[in-house]
């Protein structure tokens, strides 16, 4: 079974995100980048499928030069090959433009299954997987936590998280599945894996190679435009209710909750 895993490079959650003074974006100078954690589940699952059924695991990543670090992490984990989509024209794209670019790139890759992380932890849109499925006219199941491929490899049984329980679906393949925490425990890249990754094929494609026009990708091809970034307002200081024992403090608290916070 051939599996494609769509991967995004995102700022590390440990990095302090600063908004540019003019609100046009975030300051990227000091950022450390990592693979989107939800995509790691996709790679792990793809590797397990390969270990069971054989086939090729391909990493598909749209991102600038630095994204190669993330791609190589995936190759070091055990993926076989990678395609990087890198062109200044791709920059600033929304979920739709991104999905469109990925869909175009997928035309040149054989697959029986596509994984996307349930969302990227930078913009938290959670739309690329669904948009991609739509553009490819494929079924899609989001937020999967368990996957069983049928023996004939034509369908899969998928568990997905829903409020208050688990939904079990059967889906025909190929399909787009978005991966969620709990699906598996992603492996660490081993040292031999890191060394082997250097020799694995990495195909870098630009706009021309995909045959798309510049107004259909990136910022120009987006359906939504980000007008301004603002940092979340700083959390206001808490209020400590003073008084002798609960007899005194509880009524004060109730009063505040009623009148000031208007919660009760």
């Amino acid at each position, binding site marked *: 079974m051939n599996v494609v895993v769509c991967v995004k490079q995102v700022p590390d959650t*440990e990095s302090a995100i600063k908004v540019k003074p003019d609100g046009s974006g975030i300051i990227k100078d*000091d950022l*450390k980048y990592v693979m989107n954690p939800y995509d790691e589940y996709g790679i792990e699952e793809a590797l397990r499928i390969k270990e069971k059924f054989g086939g090729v695991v391909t990493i598909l990543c749209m991102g600038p030069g630095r994204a*190669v*670090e993330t791609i*190589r*992490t995936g190759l*070091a984990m055990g993926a076989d090959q990678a395609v990087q989509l890198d062109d200044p024209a791709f920059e600033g794209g929304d979920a739709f433009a991104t999905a469109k670019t990925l869909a175009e790139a997928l035309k040149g890759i054989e697959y029986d299954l596509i994984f996307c992380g349930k969302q990227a932890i930078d913009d938290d849109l959670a739309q690329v997987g669904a948009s991609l499925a739509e553009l490819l006219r494929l079924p899609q199941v989001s937020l999967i936590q368990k996957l069983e491929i049928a023996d004939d490899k034509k369908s899969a049984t998928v568990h997905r998280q829903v409020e208050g329980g688990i939904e079990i679906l059967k889906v025909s393949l190929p399909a787009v599945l978005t991966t969620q925490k709990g699906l598996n425990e992603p492996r*660490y*890249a*081993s*040292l*031999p894996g*890191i*060394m082997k990754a*250097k020799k694995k094929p990495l195909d870098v494609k630009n706009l021309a190679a995909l045959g798309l026009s510049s107004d259909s990708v990136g910022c120009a091809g987006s359906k939504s435009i980000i007008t301004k970034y603002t940092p979340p307002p700083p959390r206001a200081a808490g209020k400590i209710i003073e008084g002798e024992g609960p007899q005194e403090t509880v009524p004060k608290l109730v009063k505040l909750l009623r009148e000031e916070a208007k919660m009760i």
Partner: protein
Amino acid sequence: MGNLLVDERDVEFVLHEQLCVEDLCKTEKYKDFTKQDFDMVIEEARKLAVNVLLPTREKGDREGCKYENGKVTVPECFHEAFRLYKEGGWITPTEDPEIGGQGLPFTIFAPIEEYCAAANGALGGYAMLTHGAAKLIEIYGTEEQKKKYMERMYSGEWAGTMCLTEPGAGSDVGATKTIAKKNEDGTYTIMGTKSFITAGEHNLTKNIIHPVLARIQGAPPGTKGISLFLVPKIRVNEDGSLGEDNDVFCSGIEHKLGINGSATTTLNFGDNGRCIGELLGGENEGMKIMFHMMNEARLGVGLQSLGQASSAYLNAVAYAKERLQGASIMSMKDPNAPQVPIINHPDVRRMLLWMKSYVEGMRAFAYYIAYCEDKEVTAKDENEREKYADYIALFTPVCKAFFSDMSFYIIKEAIQVYGGYGYCSEYPVEQLLRDNKIASLYEGANGIQALDLVARKLGMKKGGVLMNFLTDMNSFIEANKSNETLKSYIEGFEKAKNSLAEVSMHFGQIARGPDFIIPIINAYPYLEVFGMVALGWMLLWQATIADKKLKEIMAKEGALDQESIRKLISGNKDAAFYSGKIAAAKFYANTVLPTVISKVRAIKSGDKSVVEIAEESFAS
């Protein structure tokens, strides 16, 4: 701030800005590597340390090792961590790819080891000894021994140890009593008891291969009559399968101050006369061979000490930024002044900056020693190779002893920053202190290291090795003494360096006269002086780089006056980092290096009280 184990930015600085490790990729040996590879390896080591090893640190300490009927059980959580460690190939980063390694430079191994030790020193010991024992077989073993033992040790399937110490032979290895009797088939029957054997018995692996020092019957006395034997816990059949047990019995484990997850065992070899060993290398060559492992282990102890000190320092900084206590000294007269984080208090800052300068100085020197190993194996000619091989020999006792003692003081200071909370097990620093104490004791107690430095290493090539080291420092001083910003600190360093040279010459002059006892009495203070000067070189070397880079940033950002520089530092990570580098070097040059001069004066006073005082007079 990222992880609380090792400062990632400082690792990057030492590797790429100070040592320019990427230049190694221009050599034949390392031509297949790129900076990107190095960075990726270190990043994965960081992940392993933070996500896999660190969660076992406290658990392993609380659970400890259990002994029952000759068998030792390690903390439960060690199993999965050790599995991920060995399967990740972390036992053999620097070994030749042909024998299953990755062929990475030693300079890249240094941060890997630092990360792992910072995360869990007790667990790291199992891997470190396995590597060291396998290395001996790689270098001195027959093809058959390599196939039989080495490969399965390098893969982590089996573990290794280092069996030197006996109840009556600790620092005095020459007193070894374990006996080896030659059998007709060429093997030896081993009989004796070894004590304080780290990882001597455990359930992490199915077999353990013990390199054991023993005396072949009739061998000359002292260290000249000691041979080394490979003694498996379980015998290995011709086809590689495990056979019967080899009469190696663990008669107990020690209950210790720290590294509770590390099994410190007493091993009885041949209680029933059935313990078989194979000679490794030649007869009576045991000490020479074992020294290879001991030197590796001594540098390993230095890195372990560094890792623990680093973790203690980063934890102390994080705590000092959070903990509110007392008002700022600037508003001490105002009773309503708010509490501030304790990092605002001058005494806390003094402790932190002192720790920073030592931790970063030690990191630079440890990586530099590893870099010397790379320079040795990639040398253009014999002179260059010899220079760096001799450096490693000279620096090894300093790295082991100076680092292990300094790291203890650093962790002690970290506890001081925490105040009473630091003394409690709720915070990690008390465990770090307990786990670290062993470093000054094992792999040759620090007093032995000092004697090794003074009696063996200083005299190497008639003092030529030390001269080379002094010359390198002189060249650095020459090249940088006109640096306007750092001039006075470099002058301070020069004075300290001259003091080291002076006391070294003094030792050379009196070594053969009636005062020969003075260098022996002062071997340890001398080692301290040596370490302090070496770290001074590292810190000032770093400061010259940081100064240049900070000036570039200032010019680029147009920060010219104090206020705009301060603003730049608060908003620009690199500016803050470089500024911190300069601060550490300045602090060290102004407050630590002057003590070198007084220490040297004390040594040269010729005081012999320690040998003159009667035993009866020590206590009544």
